[in-house]
């Protein structure tokens, strides 16, 4: 990729020469004769948070599953960490997924396991020592502010709490790439805000690359305009209506990408669908 940034940008921008963490190249997929994604191309670079906006059932979840190799595209190529996910054999996919954390739309916690065992799942599979597992579980549950729920079962938690446990489970090994599928879907506005708070915190404390899909514009704005303040341990607005420059947007509509750029560019877009969508 060539340097093509004509506009000087205030925040450190990701290295444009590095191999993108995620790259979709002309990806299409359909089910039962119905096209869901058509010729999708985009990239996510090291350190970027890419927010995918789109109306309900436009294929957002499908797109994330494609990125994680849980589905395969009908055509096109998908690269994650430079490896072609769309062509990797299963055994290599499991190895690649060690570097990827995924938060599912409805949390997808294992309902036969306690919160502790859900969060510890990855470490247990890797046969980590009990003491290490316990310490890491405590640490990550403290991060999502749910230390007191260790021995509860998912069915005993509220929707917002389940979502936090799902985030804890995904980030326990600090994966380099995080995939969030509608993390605020189905939650009330106040709970949604706490989840976004948590995602901003994860972005600004641990870093890494993420893909986040949502149909809620307010979440997307919040992610782009807020930063995590370690002193107050809270999220705050970036002063002078500043933006987080590593957070950029993709808008999907009717099987295609209709926008790819920053929040500023999105707000000034002329496309009638985008204007309608933003209003």
């Amino acid at each position, binding site marked *: 990729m060539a340097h093509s940034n004509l506009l000087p940008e205030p925040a450190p921008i990701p290295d444009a020469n590095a191999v993108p963490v995620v790259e979709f190249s002309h990806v299409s997929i359909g089910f039962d004769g119905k096209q869901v994604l058509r010729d999708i191309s985009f990239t996510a670079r090291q350190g970027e948070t890419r927010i995918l906006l789109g109306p309900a059932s436009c294929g957002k979840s499908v797109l994330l599953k494609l990125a994680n190799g*849980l589905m395969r595209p009908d055509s096109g190529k998908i690269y994650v960490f430079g490896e072609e996910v769309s062509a990797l054999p299963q055994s290599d996919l*499991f190895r690649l*997924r060690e570097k990827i954390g995924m938060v599912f739309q409805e949390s997808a916690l294992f309902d036969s396991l306690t919160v502790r065992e859900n969060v510890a799942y*990855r470490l247990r*599979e890797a046969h980590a020592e009990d003491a290490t597992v316990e310490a890491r579980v405590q640490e990550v549950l403290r991060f999502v502010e749910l230390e007191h729920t260790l021995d509860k079962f998912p069915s005993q938690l509220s929707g917002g709490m389940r979502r936090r446990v799902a985030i804890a*489970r995904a980030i326990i090994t600090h994966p380099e790439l995080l995939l969030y599928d509608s993390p605020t879907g189905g939650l009330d506005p106040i709970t949604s805000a706490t989840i976004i708070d948590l995602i901003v915190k994860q972005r600004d404390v641990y870093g890494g690359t993420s893909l986040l899909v949502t149909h809620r514009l307010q979440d997307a704005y919040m992610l782009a305009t807020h930063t995590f303040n370690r002193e107050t341990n809270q999220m705050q607005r970036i002063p002078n209506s500043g933006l987080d420059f590593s957070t950029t947007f993709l808008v999907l509509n009717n099987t295609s990408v209709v926008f790819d750029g920053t929040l500023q560019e999105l707000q000034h877009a002329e496309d009638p669908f985008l204007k309608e969508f933003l209003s």
Partner: protein
Amino acid sequence: MEIGEILREKILRVQEYVLLSVEAMANLFRRPLYWGDICTQADIIGVGSLPIVILTGFFTGGVLALQSSSTLSEFGAKSITGQLVSLSMIRELGPVLTGLMVSGRNASGMASELGSMQVTEQIDAMRALGTDPIKKLVTPRLIATVVMLFFLTIVSDTVGTLGGGMVGTTMMNLDASQYFHTSYQALAYPDVLQGLIKPLFFGLIIATVGCYYGMSTKGGTRGVGHATTQAVVTSSVLIIAVDFIISRLMLGIFGG
């Protein structure tokens, strides 16, 4: 949908089923084996099914003794009731009835459990967390079902023969020692072999069919209900069909 399309879809599903079964069996020779899950499933399937297997075994043996001794006495052959009960139990009814019972209880259980995991994306989550769900969910159920069904069938055979003896001696005036003597003497090696091979196949059918319908569930909670019913129906029919095939093969090998 036209006929060709329906047929194509059916063939695709059978192909998916065969691939899943082969993969699940191949995992027997691959690490890791999830011993914890194998034990949990063995407990659910083996210990959990014991009461119904004992009850059905007992009453089946009993009714066999009842029916056969009254028929046999017409020919003056009441003394071989024991032989008839034990042969029927061990060759056919023990394996088939135990298989059907466990199918009703556990093929449905597996389909509904894996089905709800599928529709709530827990199976995808498992993959995303780096675990192969076939290794973690299907293979342990397969091992547990085959092993447990083998022993449950032996229990059923034993309880059935005992039940036949009890009914025969208390209700049909059979001589107890004669009953048990003939029932033991009648058993030849091919009968026992046949009776012990069947549960291995039936266990394989129950676990793979239950897991297949569970893993391929679509369409939310309604889909789970559908998968559950389908799993029981399909595995029961397959058990009876495979029973016929094995019986026929054994006759071919050992002669009638």
